[in-house]
């Protein structure tokens, strides 16, 4: 590999050591192989980018500071989001990465791929970009890490015609960024998981398709995230990381296969590992039969998690909607809170769309600049929000009723 010359990076080199796979190796590999490929005659537009990144990064390590700058808005035709403009403040020293914009590409629901699709993306990005990616970004997009302004459009086109031009089974579209709907994501759900209480992949796909305009054209007060988890285990961290979290759940009784329970009893301590750990003490086990008082069950999933062969969510399935999850800026982090305790599975997608649209309309009108929807609700009050989504108050929306009697009796003071 050493026929390609790399910059000296004594600090980064330290991060090639150790057993965990090294991102430094990846950057070096891109630097070397892209150059090699170019030398071998491949069309490569940005062969020096990864090398440039090595230089900048080594300097960052030395100086303990970033060398990236926020830039103006850069975009591709027809879209307002999906590209993060990034510039290097070492323009003259490392011109290779003076522009180093990121593209966010909408992944397939559940991050399932055919290799043909991945290879096509690689081929296009080898040509038009740094050859570096993130699989995936923490919202869930495929992140294409670093290219120049003028290659954004060709790369977007490459993705739009990835089937025709690169043999992908389907084209790929741009994801969200800026004050728009962010790329929705979903846990693997029914594709692989026996716990899924609704079809997360389908829901995620439906929202994405129905709201292409909202996804691609920032026009809201701030970002809005949707995440779909098939059950309360919440494997996409929707509760904490999305404004609109759809958490699969059920309303009726946990399905029990008593024979399978007995099988588990041979290898685990059911009393200790299951019964005692139930947060509401809803279970009992006499060595023969596992009893669940389903009125006491809060559907926390623990018992089902431990004995997946024996226990299953009930049959009356659907989802709980939590609203407002977000990172701490400005008023502190928020884990989403219950806005709709239960929507039956067969009404789920339509009902969500109805609610989403109502929320967006209201937020669009009332939201302040950089005010997430959770913050708006909190500013405006739950009662107004409930009217917006046409939902009756339910005790399941709160851990406890209010502790102050400072209630606004608006209807009496018109």
């Amino acid at each position: 590999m050493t026929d390609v010359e790399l910059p000296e990076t004594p600090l980064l080199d330290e991060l090639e050591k150790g057993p965990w796979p090294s991102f430094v190796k990846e950057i070096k590999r891109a630097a070397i192989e892209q150059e090699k490929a170019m030398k071998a005659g491949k069309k490569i537009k940005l062969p020096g980018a990864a090398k440039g990144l090595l230089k900048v990064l080594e300097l960052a390590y030395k100086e303990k500071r970033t060398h990236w700058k926020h830039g103006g808005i850069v975009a591709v035709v027809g879209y307002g989001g999906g590209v993060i403009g990034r510039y290097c403040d070492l323009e003259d020293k490392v011109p290779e990465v003076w522009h180093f914009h990121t593209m966010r590409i909408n992944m397939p629901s559940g991050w399932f791929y055919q290799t043909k699709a991945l290879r096509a993306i690689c081929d296009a990005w080898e040509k038009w970009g740094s050859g570096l990616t993130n699989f995936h970004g923490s919202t869930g997009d495929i992140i294409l890490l670093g290219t120049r302004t003028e290659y954004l459009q060709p790369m977007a086109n490459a993705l739009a015609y990835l089937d025709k031009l690169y043999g992908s089974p389907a084209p790929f579209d741009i994801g969200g960024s800026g004050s728009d709907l962010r790329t929705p994501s979903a846990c693997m759900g029914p594709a692989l998981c026996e716990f899924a209480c609704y079809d997360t992949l389908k829901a995620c796909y439906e929202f994405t398709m129905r709201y292409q305009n909202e996804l691609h054209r920032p026009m809201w007060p701030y970002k809005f995230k949707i995440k779909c988890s098939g059950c309360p285990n919440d494997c996409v961290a929707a509760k904490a990381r999305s404004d609109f979290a759809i958490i699969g759940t059920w309303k009726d009784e946990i399905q029990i296969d008593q024979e399978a329970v007995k099988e588990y009893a041979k290898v685990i301590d059911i009393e200790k590992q299951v019964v005692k750990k139930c947060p509401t003490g809803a279970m009992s086990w006499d060595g023969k039969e596992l009893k669940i008082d389903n009125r006491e069950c809060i559907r926390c999933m623990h018992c089902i998690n431990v004995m997946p062969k024996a226990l299953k969510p009930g049959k009356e399935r659907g989802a709980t909607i939590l609203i407002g999850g977000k990172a701490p800026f400005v008023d502190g982090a928020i884990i989403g809170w219950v806005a709709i305790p239960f929507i039956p599975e067969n009404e789920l997608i339509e009902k969500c769309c109805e609610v989403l649209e109502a929320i967006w309309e209201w937020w669009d009108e009332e939201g302040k600049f950089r005010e997430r929807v959770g913050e708006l609700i909190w500013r405006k009050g739950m009662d107004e929000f409930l009217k917006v989504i046409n939902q009756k108050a339910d005790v399941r929306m709160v851990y406890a009723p209010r502790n102050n009697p400072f209630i606004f009796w608006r209807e009496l003071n018109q």
Partner: protein
Amino acid sequence: MVAQEVEKEPEETVEIKTDFGPPHYEIMLHPIIKKNYGKWKYHEVVRPGVIKRVAESGDVLYVVRFGSPRLLSVYTVRDICDIADKYSDGYLRFTSRHNVEFFLTDPDKIEPLIQEVQEKLGFPCGGTWDATKGEYGLSNIVHTQGWVHCHTPATDASGIVKSVMDELYDYFTDHKLPALCRISLACCANMCGAVHASDISMVGVHRKIPKIDDDAVRRTCEIPSTVAACPTGALKPDMKRKTVILDKDKCMYCGNCYTMCPGMPIFDPENDGVAVLVAGKISDARYPPQLSKVVVPWLPNNPPRWPEVVQTVKKILETWATHAEKYERIAEWVHRIGWERFFELTGLEFTEKLIDDYKRTPYIYASYRTSAAFRW
């Protein structure tokens, strides 16, 4: 850029196409997955990294999971594809924590696959857990861009992640933990890594007010939006001098202003660093979701391997792992033993910096102890 006619690439001549959306998920599903979609019966963890999934139809699928550095060159992605083609019928997936998964129908191919991935990619097999037995592996660290790509980081992301995972490697490849433990990292308080609800998290923190370069502000910034971006009202416009004035007593070093205005850089090599949080949780299992709590307000940036951060995370993880009961995540463990004991056992110092006094948060008072009941 002018005159000289160059040959156009095909990508430069196609008609613009928008809003067609991502590939439909169905075409990306392995045939066995498609066949048994929504009809999985149960799963079993065969060994760390390998989950056996059994469908109602009787079909069996082995899902084999590998750790990834997330930042991948297209060349490595192609290698991954080669392996998927060879072992997994040309299908694969990534998990929500950036691990790679292959799908096998033949259990005899598991070991060769693991072997080949280790050799070709250097990716370890693991990151799973076995809830039935109550034995847990550590998964990948969800993280962010850091010095690789972002403009507001107070620390790097990938470098710390690599250093921590090197140190905790065996926890990934084995099931040695008593419960789920999710580690995350975000390089600034924007918390793109969603560290606000993780068992252990690292977050880059600035500690100095931004340095206002009046010239740069005049040149590059829109003053009203810069002022408006400040969450604490620390900024005021200075109309005369066409710049901004900062009230240092109000600034909490968030860097929001810097995002709006490159004329007031927030980074500071000596004072930037890493805060460590613990006891966040997202699943509903046993105990409700919890926000993470700050237990170390600052550790220095010490690249390339951040030993202070690595050792602190390790110390917390291992202290917890030694003392917790089965299924007891950090939040649950601390709930049982009390924060008194957490600080005692981990040897971390409790200081006034850890008492909430951020006036804007709707939680500030909820964390104050209103009871004379505590442990000594």
